[in-house]
């Protein structure tokens, strides 16, 4: 049986501080013409390295150390050609194209996009300059770039992120390759843009019978788009099967653990996430047996002897690298069913309002020239009204530029709002001066997105966590200080003995725990969580979500949970606020919002988020909206969403709909209701 592309026992080594280690270990995979294959794995699992190695694009200090790669129509092993050889260069870009994660940096800033696409066409076809230009413009039209003829002469920085990724796709597809590799191609984009692009890739691939290899960490995306799936972990291929089989006849313990750890949009409210304990292995310290052993709930002593990385066929077309038999797995599964993971923590909500925000508006002036003349305003947020009860979690979702961050900073009083009231604990803090905020500061704190930039690299963990105790004089003496810091460490599940270390000695998850401990240190009434888990690996996210839930159950704290991932927000929140271009579109309780979304934007947003279950996915109605989130500088008049809205009327273009209650706590800003 021959495949379009076949990779056998690929091994790639990296060299670090004089030591060599394998980044991927005997990875095999194959792709057939016209199919969409997904490779899923966490960061460091080796999914990108696999594809870059196959194309010999691994840069020093990495090196392809062994294996075979065969492409249809070429007898020889591709790895036997030199990296810069004529044959390899013909294949790269010509037969196998690749698009990368960062659209902002993946295009050359000093060359026009037309040149960059055309270069690829000329390189791999026999077309003349003229024809190549025609083909280039066709390719730009194919990826829905309006005005392709004019845009041909534009530079990459004249396009938005989503548009640049379209150009990357046009560039990759222009010479009619056999295979398109999309390496986290939509990860950096907004969810609605992501859905548009993936739909488009699927359409183009089916039309041209091109095979697509989707590399991603998002299980939902592969459930929706891939036909066959590979699961990678720690440089090993763990499991492969067709899409439905992976999700419904899951064999490998890693895949099972992953599915138990991620929140889903269609989850019932009380579902408990079961985190995967521990951390992925560091490549240089990976054992020669199964890399998942240390974190596996099914492990047995036999695993330690199993050093063969190859997968075995366990069901027809379903391969797994786990050495346990079906019976053993089933028996263990039975035991795990009865294992007590603890119930969803009981939370006590009061009717008392913790935060009441009324008509908050914040514009940023735009200055130009030497004399700093004010030439305009960025309307960051407008007419924001909502409340948060004590002990409640309010989720805030929205795409880039929707004003989530500005809103958070206004509530934290990093910014002073231009208008409106921010009533916190019965007192309006919206227009207080800096020196009058002293009493307010300890009552509210924040958890940040990036666990690497949110901790001062020069401070040790103790002083990070304890700083506000000292500043606000919340402790009497050194003894009480030490006691409080230790308590905070324990509260977030860290050993106080680690408090002498500095930030970079911790893993991402641990850093986020320290960030949470810092936020808790002043006993606040409310914490604003700004995308607290989106920078973490899937297997770590559940740990942090559970921690936040437990803390809330214990202390009755309120959260504002800001994220772009609706599934996570839905899991943790009681109510959800949807924002778009600086305005509130809809507020409703979680279940109400999911079952009965009113605003067309909310509907599109929900539809854009895939559920990691191919059967559910098939049954879902796809609503894709056109266009991208406009720049905040060019906000449309009337309803900010009107130019993308499928139900737009004349009224929407003229008049901005006000937020009003339709029924029991369900608020929406749309003229339809």
């Amino acid at each position, binding site marked *: 049986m021959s495949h379009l592309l076949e990779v056998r026992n690929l091994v790639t080594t990296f060299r670090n501080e004089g030591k060599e280690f394998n980044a991927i270990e005997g990875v095999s995979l194959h792709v057939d013409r016209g199919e969409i294959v997904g490779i899923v794995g966490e960061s460091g699992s080796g999914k990108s390295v696999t594809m870059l190695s196959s194309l010999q*694009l691994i840069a020093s200090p990495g090196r392809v150390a062994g294996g075979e790669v065969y492409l249809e129509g070429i007898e020889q092993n591709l790895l036997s050609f030199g990296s810069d050889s004529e044959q390899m*260069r*013909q294949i790269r*870009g010509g037969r196998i*194209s690749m698009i990368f994660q960062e659209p902002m940096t*993946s295009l*050359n*800033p*000093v060359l026009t996009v037309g040149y960059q696409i055309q270069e690829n066409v000329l390189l791999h076809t026999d077309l003349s300059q003229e024809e190549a230009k025609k083909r280039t413009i066709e390719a730009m039209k194919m990826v829905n770039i309006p005005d392709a003829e004019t845009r041909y002469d534009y530079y990459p920085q004249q396009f938005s992120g989503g548009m640049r990724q379209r150009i990357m796709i046009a560039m990759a597809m222009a010479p009619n390759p056999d295979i398109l590799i999309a390496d986290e191609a939509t990860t950096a984009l907004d969810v609605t843009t992501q859905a548009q692009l993936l739909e488009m890739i699927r359409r183009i691939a089916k039309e041209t019978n091109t095979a697509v290899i989707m590399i991603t960490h998002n299980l939902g995306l592969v459930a929706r788009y891939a036909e066959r799936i590979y699961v990678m972990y720690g440089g090993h291929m763990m499991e492969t099967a067709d899409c439905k089989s992976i999700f419904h006849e899951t064999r490998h313990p890693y895949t099972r653990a992953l599915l138990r750890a991620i929140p889903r949009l269609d989850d019932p409210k009380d579902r408990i996430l079961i985190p995967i304990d521990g951390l992925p292995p560091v490549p240089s310290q990976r054992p020669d047996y199964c890399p998942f052993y240390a974190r596996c709930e099914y492990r047995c002593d036999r695993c330690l002897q199993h050093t063969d990385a190859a997968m075995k066929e366990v069901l027809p077309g379903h391969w797994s690298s786990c050495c346990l038999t079906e019976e053993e797995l089933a028996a263990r599964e039975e035991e795990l069913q009865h294992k007590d993971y603890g119930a969803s923590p009981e939370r006590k909500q009061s009717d008392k309002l913790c935060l009441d925000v009324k008509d908050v508006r914040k514009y940023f002036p735009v200055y130009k020239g030497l004399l700093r003349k004010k030439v305009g305003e960025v309307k960051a947020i407008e007419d924001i009204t909502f409340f948060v009860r004590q002990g409640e979690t309010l989720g805030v979702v929205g795409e880039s530029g929707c004003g989530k961050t500005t809103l958070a900073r206004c509530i934290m009083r990093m910014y002073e709002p231009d208008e409106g009231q921010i009533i916190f604990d019965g007192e309006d803090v919206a227009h207080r001066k800096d020196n009058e905020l002293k009493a307010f500061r300890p009552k509210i704190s924040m958890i940040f997105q990036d666990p690497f930039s949110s901790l001062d690299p020069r401070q040790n963990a103790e002083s990070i966590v304890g700083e506000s105790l000292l500043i606000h004089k919340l402790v009497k003496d050194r003894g009480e200080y030490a006691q409080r810091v230790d308590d905070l460490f324990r509260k977030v599940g860290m050993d106080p003995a680690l408090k002498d270390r500095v930030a970079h000695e911790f893993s991402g998850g641990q850093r986020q725990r320290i960030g949470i401990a810092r936020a808790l240190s002043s006993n606040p009434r409310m914490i604003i969580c700004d995308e607290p888990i989106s920078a973490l690996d899937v297997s770590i996210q559940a740990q942090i979500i559970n921690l936040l839930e437990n803390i809330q159950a214990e202390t009755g704290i309120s959260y504002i949970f800001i994220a772009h991932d609706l599934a996570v927000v839905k899991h943790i929140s009681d109510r959800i606020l949807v924002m778009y271009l600086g305005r509130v579109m809809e507020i409703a309780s979680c279940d109400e919002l999911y079952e009965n979304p009113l605003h067309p934007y909310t509907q599109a947003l929900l539809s854009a988020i895939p559920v990691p279950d191919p059967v559910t996915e098939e049954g879902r109605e796809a609503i894709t909206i056109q266009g991208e989130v406009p720049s905040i500088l060019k906000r449309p008049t009337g309803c900010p969403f009107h130019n993308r809205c499928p139900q737009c009327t004349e009224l929407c273009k003229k008049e901005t709909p006000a937020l009003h209650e339709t029924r029991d706590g369900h608020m929406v800003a749309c003229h339809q209701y």
Partner: protein
Amino acid sequence: MVRYILQRLGQTLLVLLIVSFLTYLLVDFLPGDPIAAMTGGEISGETYERLFYEMNMDKPVLVRYFLWLKGAFTGDLGMSQSYHRRVVDVIGERVPVTLYLSVLAFLISVPLGILFGIISAVKRGSAADTAVTLTANVCTCLPQFWLGILFMYIFAMQLGWLPSSGFVWPHENFVLSIRQTIMPLLCLAIGGIASITRQTRSSMLEVIRQDYIRTARSKGLKSKKVIYVHALRNALLPVITLMGLRLGGMIGGSVFVENVFVIPGMGSLLVNAISSVDIPLVQGCVLLIAVFSCVINLITDIVYVYVDPRIKVA
């Protein structure tokens, strides 16, 4: 575009205003009685009085500054006390010599520096790279005045190939002029070549790491094409900024080179002016050099806009 240039022009003028004020103040702070220092102290009370009013010493600093600035705009920078001629005339004679040498040295060092930089970045880790990097590192550290004396000792005194000092224009005596300018030019250019080499190399290496280079390689382009089409243009952008600084540096370096090779340029004039406490002349020299540097910076910025599409867009 035009707006950007106008904006930069405005900024430059502002900076120049500050420079001129600082220059004026600086020299005004000279210790002791400037009139006494200038004239050596042996003058009659009458002459003193006349000079005192001539230099507006009776008026406050700001007023004097504005009078001086007004003069500067009309081409009047006062009288040089040591040359007993108008400052403008004294400087006017010297400027072309310095400009001639500096611009020539600049024109030599830019292409050579870029060439060496590319070679060493492309052949990174090779013997050629090591040799270029090492030489460049050493050359940026050599004191120009010492280099001048060393050359003079070797080529003029020992080998007798070149005249040891002096300056004539090419149109006066072509052969002599060429022979006389070789050593000063070398002295000025070596530092420039070395620093441009270093900058080109490091910015090439930086660019090669970028994502768009990976994109270019994933298209199947030849390594050469990746480097010369995709990397080089990006890598040269920071070099442009350096070039502006280098031209200014050349003028600074001419102070030493002119001193060593006895060349009648701005550099040696400045040193003479300082030694003989010729205040108007010092002010004139510094102001002129500052104007010149500002103009170079402005040109650099404008060139940058033309070369870098990123600014054009913004």
